[in-house]
């Protein structure tokens, strides 16, 4: 079974859409959803028999591009295809009453986004990573500007400008890597990167930090994020928050572990992440727009994940993967709920929640927010508990304190939202959700509950994935050996 299909099929779908458009009004929607389901089934079937698989393109690894499928990349591929599939099912119903204009283009874009996110995770060639970085970027700019309102266009322009800056610095970093090391393959680079002179190493890592940092949404470089989230539609935000950012996070730390294992920058990155979280949660308190609140909440969670991943040990990374899983699923629930709220009430202010009448959505949002907070028996708890335990063991008490303070602040505005949800004001007509949409929510909620109540079902695989991700010598050996 080849990992290339995860990228080739969405690309092929994008290219064939003009033909598929002849299948009738719903043809593209069904084909797209069917393809994503197929990809998810494919990923699941690979989960059963995980071993290293290296997909060679044209020429063997040290020279050419290749795609590496191992436990950790499979974890992300499964997560992305799962969420994208549920998103498509949700949109199948959503589009009946509220379709995007020129809808076939929307399907092309989400599939390209999926292909690019998977490509970022699988690729083992740094220039190829840049190409996927650009595909994901261009797709995301168009998706944020899709509605063509002034706000959406402004969000698109801001996103595009920061993305352009990021790509200039990323290209500069890649060119310097090739000039000084003479290779683009991650396996070769992981062996030779440490031999560079210190100041060149610093320069390259600075450029990589600027390039990826703008996309990973880490503290000094995340000024654009909330504006983009506010301007884009909630459906699109669900994709940004639960799929795209996770792919960038993986690539950033993948490169960090490969290039600079156990480096002195680790502590710096931990503090960067922790303070990023604190800053985001404090600013989130003052927001009145649901999209902005949850955009800041995303920034906070990403800062947390960043800090945990920067700790660079297997236990912390296991925790980080659990948090990524929980956060992706929870944010998918929340942004899809906001999308349905926005559709019915045409407003995303927190006050809107007071007049909302829908026990189902209230339950779902509450579940997702409790999970984000880290309440026991929900998925968020597992990751947060493991992460805090690890920080305590390694003696990072300042970080521990910062994260706990940030979590307390986070709980304040979640309770504010919950207070609005349970407000006794007169209720207006409720939301109408179809059975399929409810099923999507229930599946997502079940994942949260299942991971929370029975983490041991997943912890074996995730712990293995964490170890694989940290084990850069094995990665390099496997890749340069060109194992089939």
């Amino acid at each position, binding site marked *: 079974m080849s990992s290339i299909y995860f990228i080739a099929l969405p690309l092929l779908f994008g290219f064939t859409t003009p033909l598929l458009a002849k299948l009738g009004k719903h043809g593209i929607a069904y084909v797209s959803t069917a393809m994503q389901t197929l990809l998810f089934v494919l990923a699941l079937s690979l989960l059963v028999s995980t071993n290293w698989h290296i997909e060679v393109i044209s020429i063997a690894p040290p020279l050419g591009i290749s795609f590496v499928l191992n436990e950790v990349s499979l974890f992300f591929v499964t997560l992305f295809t799962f969420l994208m599939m549920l998103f498509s099912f949700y949109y199948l119903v959503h589009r009946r009453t509220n379709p995007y204009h020129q809808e076939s283009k929307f399907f092309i874009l989400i599939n390209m986004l999926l292909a690019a996110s998977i490509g970022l995770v699988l690729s083992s060639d740094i220039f190829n990573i840049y190409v996927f970085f*650009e595909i994901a970027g261009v797709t995301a700019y168009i998706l944020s500007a899709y509605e063509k309102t*002034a706000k959406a266009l*402004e969000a698109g*322009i801001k996103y*595009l400008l920061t993305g352009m800056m990021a790509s200039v610095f990323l290209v500069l970093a890649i*060119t310097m890597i090739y*000039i000084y090391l003479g290779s683009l393959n991650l396996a070769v680079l992981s062996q030779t990167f440490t031999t560079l002179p210190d100041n060149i190493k610093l320069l390259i890592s600075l450029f990589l930090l600027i390039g990826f940092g703008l996309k990973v949404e880490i503290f000094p470089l995340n000024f654009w994020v909330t504006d983009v989230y506010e301007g884009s539609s909630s459906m699109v935000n669900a994709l940004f928050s639960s799929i795209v950012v996770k792919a960038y996070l993986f690539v950033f730390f993948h490169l960090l572990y490969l290039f600079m294992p156990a480096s002195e920058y680790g502590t710096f990155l931990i503090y960067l992440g922790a303070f990023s979280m604190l800053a985001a949660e404090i600013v989130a308190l003052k927001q009145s727009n649901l999209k902005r609140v949850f955009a800041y909440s995303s920034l906070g969670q990403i800062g947390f994940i960043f800090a945990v991943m920067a700790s660079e040990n297997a236990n912390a990374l296991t925790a980080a993967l659990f948090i990524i899983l929980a956060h992706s699923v929870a944010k998918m629930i929340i942004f899809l709920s906001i999308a349905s709220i926005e559709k019915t009430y045409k407003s995303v202010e927190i006050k809107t929640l007071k007049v909302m009448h829908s026990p189902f959505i209230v339950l779902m949002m509450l579940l997702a927010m409790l999970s984000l907070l880290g309440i026991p028996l929900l998925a968020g708890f597992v990751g947060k508990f493991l992460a805090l335990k690890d920080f305590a063991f390694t003696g990072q008490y300042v970080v521990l304190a910062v994260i706990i303070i940030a979590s307390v602040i986070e709980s304040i505005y979640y309770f504010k939202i919950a207070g609005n949800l349970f407000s006794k004001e007169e209720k207006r007509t409720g939301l109408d959700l179809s059975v399929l949409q409810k099923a999507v929510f229930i599946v997502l909620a079940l994942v949260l509950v299942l991971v929370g109540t029975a983490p041991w079902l997943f912890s074996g695989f995730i712990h293995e994935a964490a170890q694989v991700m940290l084990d850069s010598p094995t990665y390099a050996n496997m890749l340069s050996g060109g194992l089939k």
Partner: protein
Amino acid sequence: MIDQFFTFLNEDSVITAMVNIGSMILFFIGLFGLLIQRHILRIFISVSIMEIAVFLFFIGNTFDKRFTAPILGDGHTAFVAMNDPIPHAMILTAIVIGMAVFALGVSFAIEYFKLMGKTDINEMNELGES
């Protein structure tokens, strides 16, 4: 005297130094433009200049003036003593991608101008806390 100057210019280290200094000055001009400009098209132009600087830096650092272009012909019958083709391929890709992104950005700007009549990015403040 002038001959000495020419031979000095032809030394490898001098060529590398010229490439580094020249492309970094160009990069500086682009960055400077980016920081002082406010018209959206001018910002795009500044970023384009930065990209050109990066491309020149890359190709200039990986070339060797004793070697030829990596193409057979003109009496070359084997792939020896040729410049590295990978940078050329990478820059080819990067140029096309850069152009695509700029065209997209320009179309966003046109559409925004049509709606709001603004081209100054400092005045684009529909979003955010009012």
